[in-house]
């Protein structure tokens, strides 16, 4: 097993549930029996952030959970806690919109702005000083291979380019903690590789670099994640309880599967998760 150490918590979900128009969408996320905590991971002589996958059937509440983690929707009950970076004294606060970057499945962008204008907006929102913004935007455009697209608008970008702009916007704004809602959905092989590279960039440039993503591709979840939460519906006397919840979690670091080539143990885990989702 690879050597690693859990340092402080980066995100803690405690007893969260969510009702929308009276309907229970999620319940009891982060309990004593099934905690939902993402830690800062330390690996000797390596910069290592964390990659967390959330898997589950459609309609189990993954997107709603993401919107709550991103601070867009307030939970109906419970709290979502993150370190208070502004105070920088080890204190914690409830998550707010903008604390965590949120890259949505459809990669929405402004209709009437160029790529450069969108990134300038993000830099302004990310509180980057005015005199540094152009430099920051330029360096991202260079690193993410979008230099030639800086004056183009959303309509003139390819799917992959839109995706990269949406990701950079959120990185500029929220720095190291990112949520990706189904980032692999509808992508071709090359674009899937691009997203994998993106994940690697985020998690290997800072120890605090953290990604939470959802996917229906269990193979990719097992391949990329260090921690997997399976969301589904608990059954009581073969009847599903209302509201999705964490039915099981897998700590691939403890299991010795994280940061390793995909092999037989990964395949077994893949099969186990698939069975869990089918049965839930």
């Amino acid at each position, binding site marked *: 097993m690879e050597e690693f150490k859990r340092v402080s918590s980066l995100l803690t979900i405690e007893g969260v549930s969510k009702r929308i128009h009276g309907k229970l969408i999620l319940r009891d996320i982060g309990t004593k029996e099934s905690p939902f905590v993402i830690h800062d991971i330390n690996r000797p002589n390596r910069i290592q952030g964390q990659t967390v996958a959330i898997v589950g059937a459609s309609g189990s509440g993954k997107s709603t959970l993401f919107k709550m983690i991103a601070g867009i929707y307030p939970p109906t009950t419970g709290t979502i806690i993150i370190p208070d970076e502004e105070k920088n004294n080890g204190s914690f606060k409830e998550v707010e919109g903008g604390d965590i970057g949120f890259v949505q499945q459809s990669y929405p962008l402004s209709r009437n702005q*160029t790529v450069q204008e969108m990134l300038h907006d993000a830099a302004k*929102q990310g509180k980057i000083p005015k005199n540094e913004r152009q430099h920051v935007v330029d360096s991202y455009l260079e690193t993410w291979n979008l230099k030639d697209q800086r004056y183009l608008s*959303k309509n003139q970008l390819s799917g992959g380019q839109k995706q990269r702009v949406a990701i950079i916007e959120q990185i500029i704004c929220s720095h190291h903690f990112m949520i990706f809602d189904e980032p692999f959905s509808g992508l071709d092989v090359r674009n899937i590789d691009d997203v994998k590279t993106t994940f690697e960039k985020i998690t290997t440039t800072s120890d605090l670099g953290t990604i939470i993503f959802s996917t229906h591709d269990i193979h990719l979840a097992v391949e990329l994640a260090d921690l997997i939460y399976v969301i589904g519906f608990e059954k009581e006397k073969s009847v599903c309880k209302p509201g999705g919840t964490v039915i099981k979690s897998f700590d691939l670091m403890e299991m010795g599967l994280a940061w390793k080539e995909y092999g037989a143990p990964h395949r077994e885990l893949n099969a186990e998760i698939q069975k869990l989702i089918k049965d839930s």
Partner: protein
Amino acid sequence: MKTIEKVFTPLVEVRKSMIWTIGSIQLCVLLFTWAYLVPKPSFFPTLGEVLRAWGDLWNHGLFFHILATLTICGIATVISIVISSAIAYSTRIPFFRPIGYLFTKLRYNPIQGFTLFLAMTTGGGRNLQVTLLVIFMSFYFISALISILDEIPEEDIIRRKAERMSNWKILWKVVIVDRLDYLIEVIRLNLSMTFMMIVSVEAMDKSQGGLGALLVDTNRGLNFPKVFALQLTILILGIGLDEALKSLFKSFPANKKYE
């Protein structure tokens, strides 16, 4: 597929130049029919008669009537857009939502019932004309704008919230600035109704001049070549404005094509 076969097949893409060629041929056929195949004597004026009538109208101040019509149309459009935008955008604020939606229903109310009341209130003349046009246009602008705002995807709002933007800033960035081109499109799509209305409005007070006043007077004298000449003038003006607004709409980044 052969070109001839293509142009008669549904849902087939043809070159833009081909559409222009077909359009030009059709226009020539129409003009030829009008010029040479209209039976005589007939109430339907020939192309030559209409052109001569147009020349006569031009020599008798058509330009100033066009200017009067464009002025009243421009003033009413600007006022209407300001009022309609304010009402439509305010529907994003829950407190103002009911009043905004009420305005959309008022378009079913015929304006003719209020003309006397408005004439007394505004003092008639240019003020009455502008007021009638503003009221008429605003109901349609508000309805069209609100339906566009209702279609704003939730993802666009979430994206900006994830960028730490306040709700007011999101209103400005996502609802107003990011959809400014739609405002132009709403004006363009409603312009034809404005032009239909302008004839009736200008006819109410002919002392202000304008194409509508001229058309009503000409119609009364059964001078069909002049009536046709005026109708064509209004049509050409409308098409010109429509094309200008279409160009403006296309100049927005959102409507630039993939390169």
